[in-house]
């Protein structure tokens, strides 16, 4: 049983989803979905706790490694799976009231089934050691997220979903072209096998083209500036619960796939020395951070504001990756985790506002601090985390990033990072001012405090942003171990 854990992470939600469509009873399906999500979370916790005994490799169907599909669990994949399944579980616990209001009753069991499929896809991308399998899981998670986004209440939701579908499919197809070219070069789809065979090949044009296609494909999925255009609409018009889950996890899993691409399949030497990807990445991240943060300041819809902020935050993660040393990589991975918590928490707060006020326009939220004090306070705490105030999770990752930039003597980058945090102060403060210091709008006057069933999960997530701001053994500590093993692998590969 214990040795089957890696495959159960995928099999349980994957099998549950079609079963839940057949069951069709929405109360029962909701209960079972929560059960499945928490079970998967339990499994990922136990996988991560096993990491001290070394990475796990699971051969599917007993086929030996380069021929069959393998599932690899190491520090990095276990860590990413942990927060994906953890946020998935907590968001689904928070979900019922919000889904009740925002999604039509007849679609509830389908909604929960798609939610599970989306989680399966994201977890699968983390765990699989087979490149084509990554594409399949990418498409599973993408297709279900398109469907989830289109369930939004407004008529713009299907259009936003279609735009995302078109851009997302182009991205996934680019990734597929890259896989094809790599297969043509090496004749294998196993990541470790590809890596060892690419060592023998000096460097050819096919390799460059494959790398370029895969990078651009993943950039689209990550919503790196300037390929982020699908994201604001998709996040804004999706049901609140979907936004919580997707904003917290989907883009991070693509960042994870990108880390794997650079550090496991190709080598950092290839990506950063042969190709000037590090300086390109740094430029894109910094421009993205500033443009998206500035755009966030001018938004009139609170969800769209956070969506632009997400585009900016992806920049910090890539900035860490582009530094290509243990410190930078640790910062990038830590920020994946911290930002998942912070943005998940903030979107959960927005979901509470959506439930009680029914509008997400900033002018309708005026004065909600008096009628919904707990929800508004959660925004303040989460917002401090997003800015990176000391004692919050956001501070930890920004501090790591800053020290890493300084150790590389990248002074301009360090200065720009600090300046960009000021932009975050502006857009977070703008909402705080509207919540607390503006005359109440007629919608906010009659609003009630959000129900405890939603507030408690929100406060758990927001609470964790404080916990991981003070106590970093299980965030930065694991990220450090993951970064060391990633760089260790490539160094060993170089010696061979």
């Amino acid at each position: 049983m214990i040795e089957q854990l890696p495959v159960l992470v995928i099999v349980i939600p994957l099998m549950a989803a079609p079963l839940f469509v057949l069951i069709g009873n929405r109360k029962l399906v909701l209960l079972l979905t929560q059960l499945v999500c928490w079970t998967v979370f339990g499994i990922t916790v136990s996988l991560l706790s096993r990491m001290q005994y070394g990475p796990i490799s699971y051969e599917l169907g007993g086929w030996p490694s380069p021929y069959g599909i393998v599932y690899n669990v190491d520090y990095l994949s276990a860590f990413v799976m942990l927060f994906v399944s953890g946020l998935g579980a907590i968001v689904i616990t928070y979900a019922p009231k919000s889904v009740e209001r925002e999604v039509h009753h007849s679609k509830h069991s389908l909604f929960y089934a798609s939610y599970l499929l989306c989680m399966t896809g994201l977890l699968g991308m983390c765990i699989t050691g087979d490149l084509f399998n990554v594409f399949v899981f990418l498409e599973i998670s993408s297709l279900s997220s398109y469907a989830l986004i289109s369930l939004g209440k407004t008529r713009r939701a299907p259009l936003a979903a279609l735009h995302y579908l078109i851009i997302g499919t182009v991205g996934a197809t680019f990734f597929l072209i890259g896989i094809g070219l790599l297969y043509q070069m090496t004749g294998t789809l196993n990541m470790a096998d590809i890596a060892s065979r690419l060592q023998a090949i000096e460097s050819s044009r096919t390799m460059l083209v494959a790398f370029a296609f895969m990078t651009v494909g993943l950039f689209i999925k990550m919503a790196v500036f300037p390929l982020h255009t699908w994201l604001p609409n998709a996040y804004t018009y999706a049901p609140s619960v979907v936004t919580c889950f997707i904003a917290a996890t989907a883009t991070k899993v693509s960042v994870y796939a990108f880390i794997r691409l650079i550090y496991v399949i190709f080598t950092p030497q290839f990506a950063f020395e042969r190709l000037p990807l590090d300086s390109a990445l740094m430029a894109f991240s910094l421009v993205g951070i500033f443009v998206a943060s500035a755009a966030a300041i001018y938004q009139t819809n609170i969800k769209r504001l956070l969506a632009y902020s997400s585009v900016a935050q992806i920049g910090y993660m890539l900035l860490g990756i582009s530094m290509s040393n243990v410190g930078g990589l640790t910062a990038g991975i830590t920020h994946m985790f911290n930002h998942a918590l912070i943005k998940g928490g903030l979107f959960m707060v927005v979901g509470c506002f959506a439930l009680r006020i029914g509008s997400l326009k900033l002018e309708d939220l005026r004065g909600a601090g008096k009628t919904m004090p707990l929800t508004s306070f959660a925004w303040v705490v989460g917002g401090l985390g997003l800015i990176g105030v000391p004692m919050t999770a956001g501070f930890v990752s920004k501090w790591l990033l800053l020290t890493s930039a300084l150790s590389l003597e990248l002074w301009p980058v360090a200065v720009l990072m600090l300046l960009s945090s000021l932009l975050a102060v502006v857009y977070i403060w703008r909402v705080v001012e509207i919540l607390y210091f503006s005359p109440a709008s007629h919608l906010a006057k009659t609003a009630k405090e959000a129900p405890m069933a939603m507030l408690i999960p929100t406060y758990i997530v927001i609470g964790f942003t404080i916990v991981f701001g003070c106590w970093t053994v299980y965030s930065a500590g694991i990220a450090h171990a993951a970064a060391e093993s990633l760089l260790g692998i490539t160094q060993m590969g170089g010696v061979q």
Partner: protein
Amino acid sequence: MTDFLGLYNYWIVIFLMMTGFYIVIARENLIKTIIGLNIFQTSVFLLYITMGKVTNGTAPILTGSHSGESHGAESHGAEGHGAEHGQELHSAAEGHLESGVEVVTEIYSNPIPSVLMLTAIVVGIATTALALALVVRIREEYGTIEEDEILEMDRNS
């Protein structure tokens, strides 16, 4: 020149890819965009299938390593064309002559890219079905499938 003609499959792939991509970018009609997306995906299927083909290779179906009766049944089941079929039977017979030893005298094409594409085709169909379903909903809400008209309506509302 022979390089150019010899790689004609790849030229077709690139032509289809660019055609599809252009349609996705340039067309305002949502259905046409989806058609463009399909052409784009199809070009990738072709790319994979092309790379799986080995010169003079036959369909990767086992023949000749079994007894006469079963080999007849197997090559009967092969969906090859006349020429390939004959070649298979021929080489199968060769294998049969040297019975007892497993001899693979044939060159097989690589089956894996084709198998991968079966999966990718399924993904493509799912994507198209979902996209069309979304277009139906957009048509119900807006009464049009021209993107510029939809955006115009959103701007005014």
